[in-house]
């Protein structure tokens, strides 16, 4: 099946050799499933190319979020820890970074966390065939967005009781534990995402695991973790390089 899909994409990209093309066309004729898959790929491409409707959909989603939060601006995640709110802390951070760079001193782990850490934004919920579970997950995500992490974690864990391998929920649970300063639990949840491998949240889980090591002052592990990210193709590669430079000073 996976090979079929790879071939479908190559077919749509006009990347099949003559021999592969002949075989694909024969398979296509014989298999209604393959035909249905090809149609799905084509329609998905069409949906992706419809930038006007996609843009309009984004706009309507923003409006929905605004009306849910009752605010005129896009929902922002509230941070639970007081230092995130406090303007004094922000000023202290600017001063600390400024001073550290003037004196060429390394930033503390707390400074690095303040500078680079922010919780992962919640995507819209995927519908499953279990309405009760969807409701619970939606509630957990809402609490997460509102910064009510101690409550959010209860609902995330309930979802995971039923669906322990749901990778996105494990990622949010990990970040929620991080916010609650329960770093060991955070590491466990994030490692589940990383060990699962075949998912799209591995990069995010790797990134947040690095912060767990920073928060617990396990600097050698943090170095290894960020070095791994920096040498990969990760979305966070550049920031990981910056953290590494600061850690290595």
């Amino acid at each position: 099946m996976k090979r079929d899909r790879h071939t479908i994409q190559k077919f749509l990209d006009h990347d099949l050799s003559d021999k592969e093309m002949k075989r694909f066309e024969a398979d296509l004729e014989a298999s209604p499933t393959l035909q249905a898959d090809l149609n799905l790929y084509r329609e998905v491409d069409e949906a992706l190319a419809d930038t006007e409707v996609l843009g309009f959909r984004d706009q309507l989603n923003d409006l929905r979020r605004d009306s849910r939060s009752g605010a005129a601006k896009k929902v922002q995640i509230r941070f639970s820890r007081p230092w995130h709110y406090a303007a004094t802390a922000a000023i202290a951070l600017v001063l600390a970074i400024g001073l550290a760079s003037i004196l060429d001193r390394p930033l503390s782990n707390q400074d690095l966390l303040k500078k680079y850490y922010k919780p992962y934004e919640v995507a819209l919920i995927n519908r499953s065939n279990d309405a009760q579970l969807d409701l619970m997950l939606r509630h957990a995500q809402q609490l997460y967005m509102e910064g009510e992490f101690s409550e959010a974690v209860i609902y995330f864990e309930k979802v995971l009781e039923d669906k322990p391998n749901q990778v996105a929920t494990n990622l949010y649970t990990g970040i929620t534990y991080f916010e609650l300063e329960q770093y060991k639990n955070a590491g466990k949840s994030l490692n589940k995402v990383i060990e699962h491998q075949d998912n799209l949240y591995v990069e995010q889980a790797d990134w947040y695991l690095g912060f767990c090591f920073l928060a617990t002052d396990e600097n050698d592990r943090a170095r290894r973790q960020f070095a791994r990210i920096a040498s990969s193709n990760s979305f966070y590669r550049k920031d990981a390089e910056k953290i590494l430079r600061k850690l290595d000073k």
Partner: protein
Amino acid sequence: MKRFSDEEILEGLKKRDNRTLQYIYSNYYDIVRQLINNNNGSDDDAEDVFQEALIIIFKRLKDEGHIELTSAFGTYIYSVARLIWLKKLRELRKMDVTELNKEMEEYIEFEEPPPVQDKDLRMAVYQRNLLLIPDDCQQILRLTAQNVKSKAIADKLGFRSESYVRKRRHFCKEFLINKIKEDVEYQAMIEE
């Protein structure tokens, strides 16, 4: 809030004007919510259906240039939403419905708008699932669909190489396709 004429609403909708959209939500959403709440649906269902109705009308405006309303805009959007909800009840919930809650049907005016195409609803499922995958994946797939070359995507998104963009694109696309196939609404549609 200023009152908009139906012409102004259609014009604003076509231009995706935020003030017009807010006006539409504050004036016409409630009646759709009532319709859905009175017919086995939740507020979330109502929000989804209202959004899909707006997108269908927007698409028609874009494709056909204009819409000749034979009734008020409120009646029109209500009728489109009603049609979408009937389809969803039949397809998703397997309910044998030909009409909705009698009481509502009697006191709210509706008309039969041009039919809501199955493809419109499938496109909605695809695009909704796109928003569920990680941001970098969304950007790679959207840019690829706009024929942006892998090299330009790598530069724009800060990836090291074109080959990584290509590899990630395949992975993201497959992930999206799997998500769509797991979507209960999609499953119900293809069972038809």
